[in-house]
């Protein structure tokens, strides 16, 4: 009962507080709308651009930018950019759209790649890259990869078996350049060979090798044996011919006697 009496006593006060809160909210809404309207009007005003230009051109803006960049703002920005993957999202947007292409086109139009290449070549970067490429294991891996590739193998086989390749090789071999080159090489080789001490050492070594001397000996013996065999055959024929001639002259028939060992 007491509680109900207290509630009844404070009811008007409670109503007054509620009305006050409502009035405050309404006032705030109205004030906010008015401020936004004023801001829109200000931004839409032709003076807004000039005001912005003046602010940006003022030492205050420079000072503010300097303060911001020298302070922790950059660190915070970087940290947050990493945290929210800003760069990845930015890259995705660039790659998804044609902004990157347009940027590259504009760079190409203004000769940026040429200037970059010139700078790189002037700085010796090309030599460094070539040296690094030759010294590193990448070249070996690439060559191994190419050699082990079935596609490369198939391409080589196809190229070598093609009629075009045959015609190309035939034309190369029949060209005057090849003929002149071969002739010059042969002439120079023939001219230099007699002056080579190593060649004569090799010739001496080969000539004195047992295999060669044996072969020459065998060949000489074989030739002598062949000549002797021919002489033997002819002498046997002469034996028979003389015997027959004698029988004809003497008109005598000689009876061959059996062989007695």
């Amino acid at each position, binding site marked *: 009962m007491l509680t109900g009496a207290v509630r009844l006593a404070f009811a008007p006060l409670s109503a007054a507080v509620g009305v006050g809160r409502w009035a405050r909210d309404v006032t705030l809404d109205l004030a906010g709308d008015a401020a936004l309207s004023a801001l829109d009007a200000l931004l839409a005003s032709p003076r807004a651009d000039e005001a912005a230009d003046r602010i940006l051109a003022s030492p205050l803006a420079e000072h503010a930018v300097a303060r911001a960049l020298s302070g922790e703002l950059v660190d915070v920005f970087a940290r947050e950019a990493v945290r929210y993957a800003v760069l990845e999202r930015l890259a995705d947007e660039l790659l998804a759209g044609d902004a990157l292409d347009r940027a590259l086109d504009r760079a190409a139009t203004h000769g940026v790649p040429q200037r970059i290449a010139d700078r790189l070549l002037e700085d010796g970067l090309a030599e460094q890259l070539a040296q690094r490429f030759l010294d590193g294991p990448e070249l070996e891996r690439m060559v191994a990869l190419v050699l082990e590739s079935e596609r490369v193998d198939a391409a080589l086989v196809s190229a070598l078996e093609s009629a075009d390749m045959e015609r190309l090789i035939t034309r190369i071999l029949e060209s005057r350049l090849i003929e002149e080159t071969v002739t010059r090489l042969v002439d120079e080789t023939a001219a230099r060979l007699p002056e080579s001490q190593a060649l004569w050492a090799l010739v001496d070594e080969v000539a004195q090798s047992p295999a060669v001397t044996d072969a020459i000996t065998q060949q000489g013996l074989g030739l002598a044996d062949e000549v002797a065999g021919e002489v033997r055959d002819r002498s046997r024929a002469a034996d028979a011919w003389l015997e027959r001639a004698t029988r004809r002259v*003497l008109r005598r028939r000689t009876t061959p006697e059996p*062989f007695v060992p």
Partner: protein
Amino acid sequence: MSSDAAHLGAASPAANGTATRTLEPPPPSTSPYSGLATRALAGAIDVLIVQAVAWTVGAVAAVAASMFNFSEDLQPILIAAGTVVAALWTAGYFVFFWSTTGQTPGDRVMEIRVQDATDGRPLHFARAVLRLLGALLSALILFLGYLLILVDGRRRALHDRLIGSVVVYAPAPGRRRERRLTR
């Protein structure tokens, strides 16, 4: 019958009664005995060898002798001694080979062999000496003794008849095998 004889006998179609293939070129003679031309060539080779050695040794001896001042009276004796040595060398050459292998180097080149007419073995030393003397006898009158080879059934010269020897073809073992395989 020795392997030579068997081989040579098989070379004759009449010997085995079958038509055997002939060698290319065909064998000039089916006789197992060596004829005049082959023996003459073998003898020429032997003469060349004997003379080459004799002249070489004679030249060396002459050079050596020139270093000593022998008297002129001694020279005929030295010449006679040299002649005897040359004769001994020549006789020894033939007798040695006939009595050992039956083949002088010339005979070996021409692949013929001197052997006993009865058993096919090499001549004994004494018979080899007698054969050499007989060979000199055969050569005395224009080599008439050698011409008997052309009419004798076993192609024997006069000294062969006197001593009882024959000269047969004797192909080297390797060549014999080769000819057999060719058949």
